[in-house]
């Protein structure tokens, strides 16, 4: 099964080129230039990874990250930024980002991170299912 990725960036030309390259590598890619649309997409679809620009109009990238994590805690988010400061990086990790990559990104590195994201998400989903089953067994007290 291919990795399902959501790319969020306000630069349309960047999105188009990166999405084409990712699709050529067998990934299933959705794109959006809007932070609010990205939140809607995350609510509606199950993505293995979200690649999110830190500087977005409408909403700060960290706010988008927080809102996405609230909606889907298992979601793996990789932040992309034009300028990485240590402070922003620390904040991003604190809010649950999986990684923090500086632009221009190396697609090979990004692809590896997306594969890792999918594996991590699977572990989290599996853990969630196990906990749910455990709870059900305890509640039923068979």
């Amino acid at each position, binding site marked *: 099964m291919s990795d399902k990725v959501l790319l969020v960036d306000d630069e349309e030309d960047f999105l188009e*080129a990166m999405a084409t390259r990712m699709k050529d590598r067998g990934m299933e890619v959705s794109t959006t230039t809007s932070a609010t649309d990205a939140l809607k997409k995350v609510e509606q679809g199950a993505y293995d990874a979200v690649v999110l620009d830190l500087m977005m*109009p409408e909403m700060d990238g960290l706010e988008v990250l927080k809102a996405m994590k609230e909606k889907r805690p298992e979601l793996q988010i990789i932040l992309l930024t034009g300028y990485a400061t240590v402070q922003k990086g620390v904040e991003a990790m604190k809010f649950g980002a999986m990684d923090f990559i500086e632009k221009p*990104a190396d697609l090979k590195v990004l692809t590896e991170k997306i594969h890792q994201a999918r594996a991590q998400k699977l572990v989290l989903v599996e853990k969630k299912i196990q906990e749910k089953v455990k709870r059900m067994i305890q509640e039923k007290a068979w």
Partner: protein
Amino acid sequence: MSWNWELLGETGLQFFGKMSASISHEIKNVMAIINENAGLLEDLTVMAEKGLPIDPERLKTQASRIMKQIRRGDDILRGMNRFAHSVDDPLRQADLNDTLGLMAALSGRFASMRGVTLELEPSSAQVSMITNPFFLQNLIWLCLDFAMGCSGPGKTVALKAERMENGARIRFSKLQELATGNTGSFPEERVKALLQALNADLLMDREHGELHITFSSRAEG
């Protein structure tokens, strides 16, 4: 009255840093797009090496996207160069229309982040004056930053330079929230220090939603 050099220096350095960081961010974006499009070209050559046909239209599209970003990067660097040279002379002939254009370009990303559109209204006459170009840019930025916060639901700030009978004026208009009266601490001490250094005045026309910087002397045709 003596100028507050310490405050002017601190404010100027903060302004210089803020603009430089924004410019570097813009250049990074340009480089990222060039990087992805160059990567796409590389992908196409790998496909061609494997015997897959290349659509010439795709090559043309990639080339034109790269050229578009080169032009964008060149515009950004040209603006950065003008901005950097504004500290060369303490007093110089400056055209207010040009300066407003430069400041609108340098502030474009900040405006876009706040969802605000900047409208540069062309002036019918050239408005030039002898001034300190860096202080002038700093004052315009601080007023523009404030104006963006007052743009209200219209999310637009219009900028215009005008010749006046005894000088010149910069108008920030369409400030829909200026009428509500809550302008916070504006104009802060740093704005006042810049006004003093530029021999300028600030006027808030709350009724019409406008902010004016007026320069009383040294304006020329």
